[in-house]
């Protein structure tokens, strides 16, 4: 396997990038900043656009970016990117972020894990950059948001860009969004902190047929009513909207449920499980978190006995589930 240098591709043709993340995670900002970074120089032609469905917070979204010395003529989504970003590990549950990436491509992942773990888990062949973006976000912005780190890691992956330009372009994008100065300074710290935190390596774990891009054979092949399979998964399992790495827990060891029904009435998804009870009228026995719980926290807030809580749970690293996603 030979690693394909994105910089070389940039000089000779069109460098295509794609990012997978969840709505509300800052993926669009990261890609817009990257586009602005290239667009500031007259020699580059840039095409950037995000793709999302009617779903808002927590749903899978995708961003695309093309950079070239010649005018970009393609006007379709990027299906064979050389450089791909996984901004939110949980986004990999619904979409294959490495789909269509050639052997020797570059993968940027926002994760706490090492590049090797990621390459092994997602079956990647090529250069893998891992950056603990959520931790950097938590440390500097008190908010587990990985777009700053993902953006810096992308610029590192492309290479040959002035770091000062990288920082200032991002901050200019934030300014456009009316972010207060105090927050801009903290963003600056986070941008600088990322640079040291990036870990990378070259690995070859892809098996034949992994991440094969699907052939486009006309619009007849697309699922009914969907522009791409990204629009929604076929089963609308909205549990993927939940904050990454957490899930709802229910524990009632002392049988404390008073049967007040507040959780049942106020659950937006109607997934609270209960059974009839002679004394209390109803007894809550848990919640069906497997498919539809978006972890909005209403039940946690309304329960007078505090029976609901949220706990860490990294489903994306559960191998049995990963197989299911890849197939």
């Amino acid at each position, binding site marked *: 396997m030979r690693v394909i240098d994105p910089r070389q591709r940039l000089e000779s043709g069109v460098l295509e990038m794609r990012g997978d993340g969840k709505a509300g995670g800052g993926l669009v900002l990261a890609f817009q900043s990257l586009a602005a970074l290239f667009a500031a120089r007259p020699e580059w032609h840039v095409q950037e656009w995000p793709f999302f469905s009617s*779903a808002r917070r927590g749903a899978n979204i995708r961003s695309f970016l093309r950079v070239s010395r010649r005018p970009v003529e393609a006007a379709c989504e990027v299906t064979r990117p050389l450089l791909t970003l996984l901004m939110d590990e949980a986004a990999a549950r619904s979409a294959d972020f490495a789909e269509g990436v050639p052997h020797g491509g570059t993968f940027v992942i926002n994760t706490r894990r090492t590049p090797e773990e990621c390459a092994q888990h997602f079956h990647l062949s090529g250069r893998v950059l891992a950056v603990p973006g959520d931790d950097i976000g938590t440390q500097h912005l008190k908010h587990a948001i990985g777009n700053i780190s993902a953006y810096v890691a992308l610029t590192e992956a492309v290479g040959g860009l002035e770091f000062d330009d990288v920082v200032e372009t991002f901050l200019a994008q934030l300014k456009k969004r009316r972010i207060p100065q105090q927050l801009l300074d903290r963003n600056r710290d986070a941008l600088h902190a990322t640079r040291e935190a990036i870990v990378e390596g070259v690995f070859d774990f892809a098996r034949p047929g992994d991440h094969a891009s699907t052939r486009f054979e006309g619009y007849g092949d697309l699922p009914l*009513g969907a522009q791409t399979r990204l629009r929604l998964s*076929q089963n*609308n399992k909205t549990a993927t909207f939940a904050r990454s790495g957490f899930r709802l827990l229910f524990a009632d060891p002392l049988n404390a449920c008073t049967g007040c029904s507040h959780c049942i009435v106020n659950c937006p*998804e109607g997934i609270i499980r209960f059974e009839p009870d002679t004394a209390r009228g109803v007894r809550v026995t848990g919640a069906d978190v497997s498919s539809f719980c978006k972890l*909005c926290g209403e039940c946690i807030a309304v329960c007078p006995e505090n029976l609901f809580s949220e706990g860490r749970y990294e489903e994306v690293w559960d191998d049995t589930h990963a197989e299911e996603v890849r197939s």
Partner: protein
Amino acid sequence: MSGYKETALKESCFRPGSTLCPGCMESVAFQNIGRVTDNGIKTIFSIGTSCAEVSTLAFPNVVAWGRGDVPSDDYGKSFAIIHNVFESAPTLAEATRDVADQLTHLGALQRPVQIISASGDGGAFSIGLRTLLHTIHRRARVTIVVLVNEIFANTGFQYSPATMPYADTSTTPADGTPGNLNPPLDYIHLAMAAGAGMVAQLSPAHGKMFVKAIERSLEVEGTAVIFVPAPCISGWKFEDGQTVEIAQMGARTGVFPAFTWERGKGGTVKDCPLAADQRPSIEEFLGSQRRFAHLVAKDRETGRISARPGREEDLERLRSWVQENVERMYRLAEMKQ
């Protein structure tokens, strides 16, 4: 009339699988409307385009609606949804009622139906004010539910005629300016004046009252209009798990008091005293929402929420608007006709 717990045990026709934001009040409202309408009568919903429509009726996976695995000829459990454009939900409901009445008259429809129209506040008060008022004016026997999230959430959080004063929206940005300066439309009075048989302003945070109001709205003569204040987690910008709390706080502070009114009987304002000093201060309502971050700030040490320097006058103006709002509600409650 069944109680709160009994309603909780009923089977809602609104299922999990909608793509609404986590903690959206609209889905809580739909859950409960779905439970109340599980009363053995076929329900016909007419839904105008809004968040509630695009996020629940995404073709081809309309998994957000359904009522168990009942056969399609189970009349009591069955329901229908007709979707039309933004402003047309009330008129479409009225037309459906007319058709149902005609079919009953001809003997083709043996059992009654209940008809509920649902639209957002943008659809109902901007483009759809005309159709909303006409449907009420013609005394159509339908229930009109307006989900008032004070914002055009579906299209990118623009100002709507129900937006609170000083709120930051994408078309009234609080960027050197104080945010939205238009006082909101007095939609409750409008609905009453147009001839509604019943008007209510209740969010599912007042669970028992909400459920009762929906039940009553299905029985009442004439048009029943229920305005559901729906805190929008993405537009009002608050933290996860605060939806119910903010809806309650908004009602208690007098921003959208819990209000029910029936023609001929008069109305009541619940959970919101007339005297300002008996209500929680509005800072508590404003402080948790980032759409008011330009107006109030929380002191890190004491946790007290107060006006930002230079914004004291704006806050006082907002406070007097809230007081006027509550006083108006009490005046409306006294009206019989």
